[in-house]
């Protein structure tokens, strides 16, 4: 991994700029962590509220590195056969059926049962070879010659066993398949794990990773994100939007709007050809940023004040 991208990772600023070119605006903290992860060859465990761009970071890193993104979505009950590899049982059986007729040729000349078995043993390994191996995301990531970005999404949704099983791969980047051999990573993949903190992850896993917490963005950062992600939106509207969203986050809501909602909202504004916020416009589009009926009601109570403040902020 080191030889491939040294230029891109020459400094923290380089990383930041590179991610920015791939349309991901990040704080210096994020850039520092990505920079460190590359040089220390460690996975990054990314935590933070939903929708702040945890998964997006991994995707952008893939673009930045020019490497394929291999994504593994975790869920309860995920096990190694779905994450690592599986034998193509169907294919194996089909081949056995088709090759039944060939059996006579193979066994020709063998006398007695044990001689036949011995002869069969010579062909033993054919069915457990790489051509019958079905690689799943983890193995696929190890097999990429030019490296890959491996995204293990929502690791907190998986079971404890799976987490324990990951430990080996994350520290040594190798997998042993008993029938074949140990497969080492040709190039270490760049690994991101994301978690929404639905359960506490084990100490052992955390120890192997760098830890990055992405909070909801500060106003300047959010404005910058909107500027890059939704080009064409007017300066004034951009400031108003962000100000309104920042105020919303201070209310007592079930689900606080995150960056992805701000971006969606900005896009909708663009479609509606709006160039400034108004109370009517907001109340018509509130359902885009708030996902619960109760939340919308709470927001509507404060709508007037918040709109006024947002408009005032943009005027300065």
């Amino acid at each position: 991994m080191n030889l491939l991208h040294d230029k891109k990772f020459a400094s923290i600023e380089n990383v930041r700029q590179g991610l920015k070119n791939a349309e991901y605006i990040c704080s210096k903290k994020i850039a520092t962590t990505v920079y460190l992860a590359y040089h220390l060859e460690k996975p990054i465990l990314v935590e933070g509220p939903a929708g702040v761009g945890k998964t997006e970071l991994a995707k952008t890193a893939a673009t930045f590195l020019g490497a394929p993104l291999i994504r593994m979505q975790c869920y309860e009950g995920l096990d190694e056969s779905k994450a690592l590899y599986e034998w193509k049982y169907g294919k194996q059986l089909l081949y056995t059926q088709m090759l039944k007729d060939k059996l006579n040729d193979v066994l020709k000349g063998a006398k007695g049962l044990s001689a036949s078995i011995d002869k069969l043993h010579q062909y033993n390994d054919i069915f457990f070879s790489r051509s019958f191996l079905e690689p799943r995301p983890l193995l696929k990531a190890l097999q990429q010659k030019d490296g890959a970005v491996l995204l293990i999404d929502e690791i907190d949704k998986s079971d404890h066993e799976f987490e324990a099983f990951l430990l080996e791969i994350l520290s040594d980047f190798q997998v042993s398949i008993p029938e074949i051999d140990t497969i080492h990573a040709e190039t270490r993949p760049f690994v991101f794990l994301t978690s929404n903190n639905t359960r506490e992850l084990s100490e052992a896993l955390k120890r192997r990773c760098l830890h990055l917490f992405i909070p909801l963005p500060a106003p300047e950062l959010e404005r910058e994100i909107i500027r890059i992600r939704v080009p064409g939106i007017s300066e004034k509207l951009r400031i108003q939007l962000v100000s309104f969203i920042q105020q919303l986050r201070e209310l007592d809501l079930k689900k606080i709007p995150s960056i992805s909602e701000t971006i969606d909202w900005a896009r909708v504004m663009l479609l509606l050809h709006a160039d400034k916020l108004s109370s009517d416009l907001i109340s018509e589009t509130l359902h885009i940023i708030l996902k619960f009926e109760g939340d919308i009601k709470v927001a509507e109570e404060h709508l007037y004040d918040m709109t006024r403040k947002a408009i005032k902020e943009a005027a300065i």
Partner: protein
Amino acid sequence: MEQILKDFILALRSSGARISVPETIDAMNTVKLTGYHDREVFKDSLSAVLAKSLHEKEIFEECFYRFFSFDTFSETTGDFPENLAPDIMEENSLLSQMILSGDLGGLASSIREAAREVRITGMQFFTQKGLYIHRILRHMGLNGLNQDIKRLFHKNTLSSRQMAEKLEKGKDYLFENVKDFVEQQFALYSPSATENLIEDYLKSIKLSNLEQRDFYRMHSIIQKMVKRLNDIHSRRRKTSKRGHLDFRKTLRNNISYQGILFDIHWKKKKVDRPDIVAICDVSRSVETVARFLLLFLYSLNKSLARIRTFIFCSNLIEVTHIFDEYPVGEALVKLQSGIGLGIVLGPTDYGQALRDFDENWSPLITNKTTIIILGDARNNYGDPQTGILKSMHERSKRLIWLNPEPRSFWGTGDSEMKKYLPCCHLARECNTVHHLERVVDSLLSLES
């Protein structure tokens, strides 16, 4: 730099962050990579390597600022006695010389050196502060200073008296600074031992005597407990998940492929998760305990998937969603004030609560359900509705009653506990964390 980093990690550890040896090595490598000239980068990179949860990040932030902002003697230079001509100082001790010449840097490094010599990192309790202040001063040469002052007063010339006064002033000043320094060091290195003491104490104290300020500490104790117990038992619960080849099903499914086995089926063992219904009394009589019982339910809710939680006073409502949606502090405030939840905080009515449950949620109870009831069974002489509890008992796998009152109080006055007792598989007195721990243990071990 390496020593400073090690000291910093020590300080982090004693503030409660768990940092392992590999992480220490990572930190060393990190510093080599990023250097320490840019304070922000230095902080961010150490944070990424050392602090592995939001809680630890907070500890880290606080520790970082405290640790890297030591400027002994820098802020209070105004009070320091003025410099004297250096020519009459040969007889004085090194410490006196430093004071007289106003060598603040020298004094600061001398304090640090003395602190290291007397092993200040070993300080554990606040009662030791005085001891360490004294040790440091002695190590810096306080005796010499005192003798100098005495001798100079004795000489009784104008200049010597002046000098002695300056030294006296300097001594007070030195004392203040050493005291500050020890305070800072105590804040950095010591809390863990005290913390452990407090934890032990909190575990055995009655829940009703706990103060609001112990709340977060209690939360972490309970969390730790639930997590540990859950770890022990979940391992046993989940031993076999993907079972053997389901031969019959595989054959049957593949008949249409002329017996070629395309479609393989595995015998899967369903994970047996504990199925818990928790019902908690939040009335005034159990108010102080209820907070911690709710805390306990909250932690349980976070680590076990299927738990439905109800609270009641004059009526009964379901609150599972509150646990899912809010962080612990907010959730408990919401539950205890009951605002917007539809709970009536009048006189406790166990009869009504049981009726409410029976009418609305009775299908929840199957032969796999464990019911936990938390309450003192004081019913204000109302109808206890023992019949409903009996039918719940019969339909459930287990019914556990945790009563914050000592056993000898059960059945006295308006307590209906004696009547409810026959309907419980298990009834326990529960008013300390130790009690809770025992209950959780038996609960989880029965589940498997």
